[in-house]
C-alpha cells in the first residue's frame, strides 16, 4: 500500500485512522465475509473471473463498476440467489460457514437472518398489497417464530429513523421512506453482513445523503459489515473504508479509499474517476435574441375526488413559471423528483395544455404546428424510445414528417449519412435495427434523430442519466462538439447537478413548481443565493479533489 500522495486533499470518510486494508484476519479485525477465487458461469458465459475480497466487522467495502461488470452478480452469489444455469467455483465464507456448500434450506436461514440485502428500486422492492409493518414483521417471524415481532418491527422502524405507523401501505410513502422500510427489513434480525446494491441510485440527492448517513451510522453502531455496490465513485468516496473496482467480471484494483484515490494504479480506475467529474468544453455564446419565452405558466392537474360529491381538488405542478432562453444558449433545469420539471418539459413541447400563461418559440405559441419542427427532444431511456421493428434509417428520419417539403431519395440518404457521421456513427449503421446498438450508441442515435431537421431548440430530458459514467462523458463531449458546429440551443433537464454543471451556461433551480433560482451556472454552483440550491449542492456527493491529474 502506497501512502497518500502529497497532491491529495481527501475529505470525508473516516480519515487516516483506520489501518490499511489487511488480509483476512489482520490484526484486531474480524472478517465477516471472505470471498476467495469466486468464479461464475451462466451457462457458457463467463460472468466472474476469479475474484477475492473480504470485509471486516464494522467496515464498509464499496464494489464499484459499470453496468455488466459483475458487481451485482457477486452480491447475488453471496446471497445464493443466482439465476438458473449458474455455476460457481471458489469459496464464499460468512465468518465460518461456506455459503456455496449450503443447501437451500440452510441458505434461507442465512438470508435475512445473517445477511440483509437492500435493493436499488425502493418503489418496487416492497409488496404493494401488504402493510410495511407486516413486511418487516415477516422477516422477524421467519427467523424466530417466538419473537415479539410487533415490538421488534417498531424498534426496526425507529432504528432507521422512520416515523410512520406500521399499518401504512408502501404506496402511501415516498421513495426515501420506502427505502428506509427496505433497510428496516434488512437489519431487523441483526445481520452480520449488509449488502446494499445501488441503494440510492433511484433517489434524489437530499434523500440520497440521508440514506447514506443512515447506512454509515448503522454499520458503525451495530458493527455490521457493509458491502456497498454502486456505479458512482462519488457516492462511496465519502463513506467507504475500502474500494474494489470491478471491470468485466474481475477486480482490477482494490485498496483503502484514501490510497485508491491517491494512487489510482489501474488506468480503468483513473478513467472512471475522470469521467465522473467530466465537464464538456462548451464554446462561448455571443449575446443574442430570445428564442423560447415562458411567461407566467401554470399547469395543474385534477386529483380524484375524496368522496363522490366533493369538489375536485387540483394539484399545481408548475406554478407561475417565467424564463427566457436565448438563441445559442445552453440552459439547465434542475430539481428533485416531483418538483414539476417533467410537467414543464411537456408543456414546453406543447404536449400538455397549460392553465395560464404563455409559451412561445420565436413568437409562435408552442402548441402551433409550425413550432413543432423547430423543437426536438432526447429522452432518458435509450432502450424504450425507439421502435424496435424499424431500421435506423427510418428511425432517425421520423422528424422529416414535420417539414413541409422533406428531402427525398438521394438527398434523404445524404441527410441520414451526415446525421450519423455527426454523432460519431458510420453511414452503414443506417441498415441496422436498434437492438444491435449499445446504450450510448442509442443515445447518439436519439441525438441524430433530433438534429436531422436542424431544430432551433433541443430538449434533453435526463438524456444521460441512464448511461455509465464513461459513456456519459463521451455523450457530453459529443454535445459540446455539435454545439460548436451547429450553434445549438438547448434546455437540459436533469436531477444530476454535476452533469448540469458541465453542460450548461445558465441554470434554473426548480422547487415545488416554482423556479427559485436563475443564474449563470458557475455562479449558481459556487455562490448559491437560494437556501434550497445551497442544500442541493451540499447534499450532492462529490469526489475528493486531487491536484495531480495524470
Amino acid at each position, binding site marked *: 500500500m502506497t501512502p497518500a500522495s502529497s497532491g491529495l486533499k481527501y475529505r470525508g470518510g473516516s480519515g487516516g485512522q483506520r489501518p490499511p486494508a489487511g488480509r483476512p484476519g489482520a490484526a484486531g479485525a474480524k472478517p465477516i465475509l471472505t470471498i476467495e477465487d469466486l468464479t461464475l458461469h451462466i451457462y457458457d458465459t463467463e460472468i466472474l473471473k476469479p475474484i477475492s475480497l473480504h470485509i471486516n466487522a464494522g467496515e464498509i467495502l464499496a464494489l464499484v463498476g459499470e453496468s455488466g461488470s459483475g458487481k451485482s452478480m457477486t452480491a447475488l452469489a453471496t446471497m445464493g440467489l443466482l439465476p438458473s444455469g449458474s455455476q460457481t467455483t471458489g469459496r464464499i465464507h460468512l465468518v465460518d460457514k461456506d455459503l456455496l456448500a449450503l443447501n437451500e434450506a440452510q441458505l434461507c436461514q442465512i*438470508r*435475512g437472518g445473517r445477511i440483509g440485502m437492500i435493493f436499488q428500486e425502493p418503489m418496487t422492492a416492497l*409488496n*404493494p*398489497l401488504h402493510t410495511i409493518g407486516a413486511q418487516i414483521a*415477516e422477516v422477524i417471524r*421467519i427467523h424466530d417464530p417466538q419473537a415479539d415481532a410487533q415490538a421488534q418491527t417498531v424498534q426496526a422502524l425507529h432504528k432507521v429513523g422512520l416515523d410512520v405507523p406500521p399499518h401504512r401501505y408502501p404506496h402511501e410513502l415516498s421513495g426515501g421512506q420506502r427505502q428506509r422500510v427496505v433497510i428496516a427489513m434488512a437489519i431487523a434480525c441483526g445481520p452480520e453482513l449488509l449488502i446494499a446494491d445501488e441503494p440510492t441510485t433511484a433517489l434524489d440527492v437530499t434523500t440520497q445523503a440521508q440514506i447514506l448517513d443512515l447506512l454509515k451510522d448503522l454499520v458503525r453502531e451495530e458493527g455490521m459489515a457493509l458491502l456497498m455496490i454502486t456505479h458512482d465513485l462519488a457516492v462511496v468516496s465519502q463513506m467507504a473504508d475500502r474500494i474494489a473496482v470491478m471491470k468485466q467480471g474481475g477486480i482490477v484494483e482494490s485498496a483503502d479509499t484514501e490510497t485508491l484515490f491517491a494512487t489510482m494504479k489501474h488506468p480503468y480506475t483513473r478513467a472512471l474517476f475522470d469521467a465522473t467529474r467530466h465537464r464538456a468544453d462548451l464554446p462561448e455564446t455571443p449575446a443574442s435574441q430570445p428564442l423560447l419565452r415562458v411567461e407566467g405558466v401554470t399547469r395543474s392537474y385534477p386529483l380524484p375526488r375524496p*368522496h363522490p360529491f366533493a369538489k375536485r381538488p387540483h394539484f399545481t405542478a408548475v406554478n407561475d413559471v417565467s424564463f427566457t432562453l436565448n438563441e445559442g444558449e445552453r440552459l439547465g433545469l434542475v430539481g428533485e423528483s416531483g418538483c414539476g420539471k417533467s410537467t414543464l418539459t411537456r408543456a414546453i413541447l406543447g404536449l400538455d395544455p397549460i392553465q395560464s400563461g404563455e409559451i412561445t418559440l420565436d413568437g409562435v405559441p408552442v402548441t402551433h404546428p409550425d413550432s413543432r419542427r423547430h423543437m426536438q427532444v432526447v429522452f432518458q431511456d435509450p432502450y424504450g424510445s425507439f421502435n424496435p421493428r424499424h431500421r435506423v434509417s427510418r428511425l432517425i428520419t421520423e422528424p422529416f414528417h414535420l417539414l413541409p417539403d422533406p428531402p427525398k431519395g438521394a438527398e434523404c440518404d445524404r441527410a441520414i449519412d451526415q446525421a450519423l457521421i455527426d454523432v460519431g456513427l458510420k453511414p452503414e449503421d443506417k441498415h441496422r435495427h436498434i437492438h444491435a446498438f449499445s446504450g450510448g450508441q442509442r443515445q447518439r442515435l436519439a441525438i441524430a434523430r433530433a438534429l436531422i431537421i436542424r431544430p432551433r431548440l433541443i430538449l434533453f430530458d435526463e438524456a444521460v442519466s441512464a448511461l455509465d459514467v464513461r459513456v456519459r462523458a463521451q455523450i457530453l463531449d459529443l454535445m459540446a462538439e455539435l454545439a460548436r458546429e451547429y450553434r445549438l440551443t438547448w434546455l437540459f433537464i436533469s436531477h444530476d447537478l454535476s452533469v448540469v454543471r458541465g453542460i450548461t451556461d445558465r441554470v434554473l433551480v426548480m422547487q415545488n413548481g416554482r423556479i427559485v433560482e436563475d443564474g449563470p451556472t458557475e455562479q449558481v454552483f459556487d455562490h448559491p443565493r437560494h437556501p434550497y440550491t445551497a442544500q442541493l449542492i451540499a447534499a450532492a456527493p462529490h469526489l475528493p479533489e486531487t491536484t495531480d491529474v495524470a
Partner: protein
Amino acid sequence: MLGYLTKRLISLTLSLAVASLVIFAVVEIAPGDPAAYMLGINAQPDTLAALRSELGLDQPKAQRYLSWVTGMLTGDFGTSYTYRAPVAQMIAERLWISLPLALYALALAALIAFPAGILAAARRGRPADLAVMAGTQLGVAIPNFWFAMLLVLLFAIKLRVMPSGGFPGWDEPLDALKSLTLPAVALALPQAAILARILRSSLIDALGEDYIRTARAKGLTRWQALRRHGLRNALIPVLTILGLQFSFLLAGAIIIEQVFYLPGLGRLIFQAISQRDLIVVESVVMLLVFAVIVVNFLTDLAYAAVDPRLRR
C-alpha cells in the same frame, strides 16, 4: 373504503337504470305485435284490441316502461304472453337450476384452475408446466357440448353411475346435485383451462417482480414467496375473468342444457325469443344484466379487498 363503496354503488344504480331503458327500447323497436302473434293470423280486430288492452300494449310507452320497472322492483315481472303464467314464477323455477349450475361449474373451474395454474407457474418451463399448458390447450379447444356427450357416454351409458339428463327437482338434493354434476363438469372444463392460463401468466409476471426478490432475500423459500407475495398480486386478472365467466355461465349454458335436458334459463330465453314472448325476453335479459352488473360490483369489491391502492 366508504367513498369507494358509495362510488361503486352509484355506478351500479346508474348502470341498471340505463340498461333497463335500453332493453325496453330495443324490445319495443323489434318488429312483430305480440298480441297478433298470440292470436294467430285469423284473429278478429276486436279480440286483438281486447288482448292488446289486457296486455297493456295500448298504453303510452313511458307509462308502460314505468309500470314494467316498478313491477320488477316489487317482484312482479308481468304475465307471459304465450304461457299465460307469471314471468316471475317461470324465471324463479329456471333460476333454481341455472344459478346452482353456474356456481357449481365455477367452483369446479376454480378448483381445477388454481392448483394447475400455480403448479405451472412455479415449475415454469419444466415438464409439469408443459403438461398443464398442453392440457389447457386441449381444454380450450374441445367444444363443451362434445365433451358433454363423451361424459354421458362414459358415465351414464357405460358406467351407469350418473344420470344422462333431466332434473329431478330439489326435493331430492343429492339426486339433484348428481344430475347437475356432468353438466357442471362439461361447463367447467374450458373455463378452468382459460382460468389456469390467466393465473399462470399473471403469476409468472408477479414472480418476476422486485418484491419477490426482496422476499427471497428475507429468507422466504421459493414456495413461501409465491404463496405470500406472488399469489395475491396475481389475483386481479383472475378475478376479472371469474366475474365474466359467471355471467356467461348463467345464461350461456344453453347448449349444455339442451344436451342434458335441463330446463334452465338458457332454454327459457331461447323459447321466448322464438315465440315472440317479449315480456319474458325483456325480463330474462334484464335479470341477466342485473346479474352481470352485480357480479361486476362484487368483482370491484374483491379488487379493493385484494389491493389497498384501489380503495379510494
